[in-house]
């Protein structure tokens, strides 16, 4: 009995024990100004909701080569509730860890027999925003056990590795200097919980991968390609690091 309790404690505490979570855990919205906070909270005026609305329409539309999402998944409010909070996750059928956009494309190509949706394309972002919004308020709970472990460790290695001409690692800003002012920004803890998000600077909604690529640019490092293993690995590390944090996708950022 005691051995079982220890194993259970190790299993549930695994993520927390392996990662030094910032204390206290603060979502990215807390580092934004009042106007941006108000906009994210506004269920009508949040510009990301335009992508959610389009995603809702696409959900019920038959694809070019197969059934609509709704045909298999029914009402997304029910079937997709809490789903994106467990991403990225290892997909047995694909044999690798995928993020939400990757999983959507796996369905589009595998089950809907249609051409994959291009990265940052309107339909992919719309479906991602729609599905992610069904997990608003649900604490992140990505698994790093079993087949996901190797990807998690790759993500962790990347997070602590100095990159680019500025020779900076993610942890230097987001673990050691969150809350500090950098030019006109407040450094956040770098959590993925509010993504995909509408970034005012982009004047559009974008994926977490787009935001991570902007981080790579920020340190003048070569940008990893959309869908690359490194970006997915980093997403998994970030999700595990933010375990327990509930977000409110679609977020708004300046």
């Amino acid at each position, binding site marked *: 009995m005691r051995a079982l309790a220890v194993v259970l404690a190790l299993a549930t505490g695994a993520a927390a024990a392996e990662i030094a979570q910032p204390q206290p855990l603060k979502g990215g919205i807390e580092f934004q100004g009042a106007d941006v906070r108000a906009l994210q909270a506004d269920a*009508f*005026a949040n*510009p990301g*909701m*335009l*992508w959610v*609305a*389009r995603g809702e329409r696409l959900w019920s539309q038959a694809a070019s080569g197969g059934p609509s999402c709704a045909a298999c998944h029914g009402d997304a409010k029910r079937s997709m509730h809490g789903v994106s909070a467990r991403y990225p996750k290892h997909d047995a059928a694909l044999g690798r860890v995928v993020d939400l956009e990757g999983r959507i494309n796996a369905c589009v190509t595998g089950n809907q027999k249609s051409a994959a949706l291009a990265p940052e394309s309107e339909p992919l972002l719309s479906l991602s925003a729609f599905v992610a919004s069904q997990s608003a308020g649900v604490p992140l709970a990505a698994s790093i056990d079993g087949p996901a472990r190797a990807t998690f460790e790759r993500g962790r290695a990347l997070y602590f590795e100095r990159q680019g001409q500025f020779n900076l690692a993610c942890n230097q800003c987001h673990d050691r200097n969150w809350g500090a002012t950098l030019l006109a920004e407040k450094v956040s803890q770098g959590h993925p919980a509010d993504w995909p998000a*509408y970034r005012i600077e982009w*004047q*559009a909604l974008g994926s977490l991968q787009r935001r991570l690529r902007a981080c790579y640019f920020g340190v003048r490092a070569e940008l990893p390609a959309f869908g690359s293993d490194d970006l997915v690995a980093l997403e998994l590390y970030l999700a595990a690091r933010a375990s327990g944090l509930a977000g409110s996708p679609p977020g708004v950022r300046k």
Partner: protein
Amino acid sequence: MMLGRLLVPPTVRKGEAFEIKVLVQHPMETGFRRDMNGQSIPLNVVNRVVCRIGGREVFSAELGSGVAANPYLAFFATADAPGEVEVEWTDDRGDRGRVSAAFGLA
């Protein structure tokens, strides 16, 4: 057809101003941006928005590139009977959009 969202209260009081909110999905391209190849992206904005209730215009706007992408407008109207709020808009390329919502009298 452009995507838009419309928020109208389900019921309004006769003759009392009620707020209408519109959000349109549109890049409001300024004409000053360049694409990956250095080519200028042409100016294209939602240039006119019209709101009608029962076919009668109650509000309209001319917008320019000085309005933020995915334009948001909140304004007021009054009504003496239950009806439908209809909002239409066009952009520089001639693309159109339309949303509508019904309301009752409290």
